[in-house]
């Protein structure tokens, strides 16, 4: 899913030049047609999935967002009511604020961690594959229910964190159940899953030619100078890629907050994430129309944020191949 687009080392062999023989041309055309059909047949399950499972419901939810659909019973067209209602809904504002804090604090922290660790591991540590796997592990587990339950325990009143603090003579609180700290524990959880951007950073670092560093050190550039003048600029496309990916992911996070809060944003709505509020309105309050509208607003938010990112990228992302 998070594979890097690595340019092929060798150009692929060119197609055999077509001979001007008409019979041969027809044959090869037929062959290509057959190949294309085979390809399409193999693609068909994916197409069907896209249309039936993704595109269909997507369009349905767009329609429903203009109705008062409640899951049970009939629904009526209500125009833009669901959309205007959000502005007067304090819980919507709360959910949006929580999510924004979560995204804009945890993603930069997570990426910095990932980059720092990638730099250390790139120094040619012995047993790199093992370390890489270990640090990647949280990324695989991070959004699972099991880890969220573990988080509850670790940051609970009698959890590991407080045991450690007690050792230092500090009296802890129940971090997950305190409205001032609950969101913080979720941010820490997201930062902890720095493995997948780290692996991508590692791959990116490997692509920077060693000769650049050689030349720089001959010119008398120190390690820090090398990092800012060579590593960082050449890594900007990777940073950009990670940033986009993690921003989108973070905006949509659901499981952790759902499990840690017991499904209702507790304590006092401090962990009410956007997606959780959508879910609660749709399935708990049976306001599926309103929930659909919120889901579409989230799509707009993520899309415009990504668009801004792409526009901004002109000013800071450096592509070496240009």
């Amino acid at each position, binding site marked *: 899913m998070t594979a890097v687009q690595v340019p092929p080392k060798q150009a692929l062999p060119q197609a055999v030049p077509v001979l001007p023989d008409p019979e041969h041309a027809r044959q090869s055309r037929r062959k290509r*047609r057959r190949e294309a059909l085979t390809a399409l047949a193999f693609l*068909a399950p994916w197409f069907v999935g896209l249309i039936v499972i993704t595109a269909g419901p997507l369009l349905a939810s767009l329609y429903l967002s203009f109705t008062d659909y409640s*899951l*049970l019973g009939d629904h009526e067209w209500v125009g833009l009511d669901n959309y205007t209602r959000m502005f007067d809904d304090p819980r919507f504002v709360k959910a949006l604020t929580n999510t924004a804090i979560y995204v804009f604090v945890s993603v930069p922290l997570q990426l910095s961690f990932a980059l720092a660790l990638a730099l250390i591991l790139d120094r040619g540590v012995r047993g790199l594959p093992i370390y890489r796997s270990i640090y990647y592990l949280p990324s695989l587990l991070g959004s699972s229910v099991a880890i969220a339950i573990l988080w509850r325990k670790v940051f609970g009143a009698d959890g590991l964190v407080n045991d450690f603090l007690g050792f230092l003579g500090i009296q802890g609180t129940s971090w997950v159940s305190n409205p001032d700290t609950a969101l913080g524990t979720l941010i820490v959880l997201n930062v902890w899953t720095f493995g997948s951007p780290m692996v991508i950073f590692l791959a990116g670092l490997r692509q920077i030619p060693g000769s650049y560093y050689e030349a720089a050190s001959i010119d008398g550039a120190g390690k820090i100078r090398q990092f800012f003048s060579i590593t960082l600029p050449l890594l900007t496309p990777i940073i950009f890629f990670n940033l986009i990916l993690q921003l989108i992911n973070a905006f949509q996070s659901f499981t952790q907050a759902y499990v840690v809060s017991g499904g209702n944003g507790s304590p006092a709505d401090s962990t009410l994430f956007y997606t959780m509020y959508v879910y609660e309105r749709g399935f708990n309050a049976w306001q599926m129309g309103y929930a659909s509208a919120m889901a579409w607003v989230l799509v707009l938010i993520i899309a415009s944020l990504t668009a801004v990112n792409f526009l901004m990228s002109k000013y800071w992302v450096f592509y070496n191949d240009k």
Partner: protein
Amino acid sequence: MFHHKKRIWPVLLVAGALTFSAACAGDDSGSGSGDGGDGQVTIRFSWWGDDSRHRITEEAIALFEEKNPDIRVQGEYSAWDSYYDQLTTQVASNDAPDVFAIEIRRLGEFARRGSLADLGGLVDTSDLNEQLLPSGNVDDVQYAIPTGANTFAVMLNKAVLEDAGLEVPDDTSWTWEDYLELSARIGENTDSGVYGTQINFNDAYLRVFANQRGEDFYTDDAMGISEETLTDWFRSHLDLIDAGASPDAARSTEIGSTGVETSLIATNTGAMGMWWSNQLNAMTTGSGQEVEVLRMPREAGSDTSGMFLQPTMFWAAAESGSHREAAGKLIDFLANDPDAARILGSDRGLPMNDAVLEEIRDEMPETDIASLEFISAMEGELTDPPRAYPAGAGEIPDMLQRYGEEVIFGRMSPEEAASAFLNEADNTLG
């Protein structure tokens, strides 16, 4: 490349046709309520709960199938958290299970939206408890049959109380002040980490509290509780924490959101708490100590206990089900068959069929007999069970907890919380 594009359409057509036929096939077998070849019908039966409940319910199903060879029952169970999401989605897509469990908070909404079948004539209700039965009745139609009886009461861990050197209070006369005082003294007299009681935002507590002041929880389409009562109720939690009778706000929130297993009583870290009477067994097992059920404290000078008989859950049948008679038979079996009651015990509340109860009484475990005796002793003191709630009531418990947390963390005063809660609740109900 261009002429290849045209070739997309046959592929898409084939793919589309395949999906369509797959979907149709799914309709035939997927609903699962088709007739078997040998005149058998299959009905689907859905409930929520933990492993022990799943086990005994499966056992009861096996017995039902033995007694009704022409009906097969397909059990579909899930955990509580996802139960309504699943059920609502199934009902919305006309794929509802034939028989399912439901509770009072959602009964009114499902019934009034036409999703439940009229059980009149399908289930024999002649032996069922007359006080409890009407709670399954919405707009004069018996849409649901209570699974059993329950009441919300105070539970007391005797070992913790003895450690504190205190005696069991007289629950026929104690007031909310006595409750606060006793809880605070237990906290003082015991080690740190052991408390008098735990914070409880259960709407049942508020119902009792309000009933004692002569207020109903709901009117037909709004909250029936006054702002003053709600303010006092929110303040009662703050008082418990301030007096050291309950853990601090953060710890209380952590305990409060996780149920019986982590409760103060079950972990022997507290003496009291408010729970449903059918949770006595779990509390006793969890703590390994003797746990006693007590009446709720009273408002000084109030002439009613405010306590009520609660239908633990209901059995209901889907309006869309095509085997209503078989569904009715299953519900009848669950409610009226002594052998079913033997298997199911008091897991979904004490059996509400008096004849059945009499027959299996001697075989019941001690904790069931204790809660049965408690409810019997309270006969006359318990008010009628609540009737189906107004639409939107499913949201009220979470809302109550949310504003309760605002109060105990000092982010809102009890007055502010009461007024904001009533405002939001009245916008939701209707």
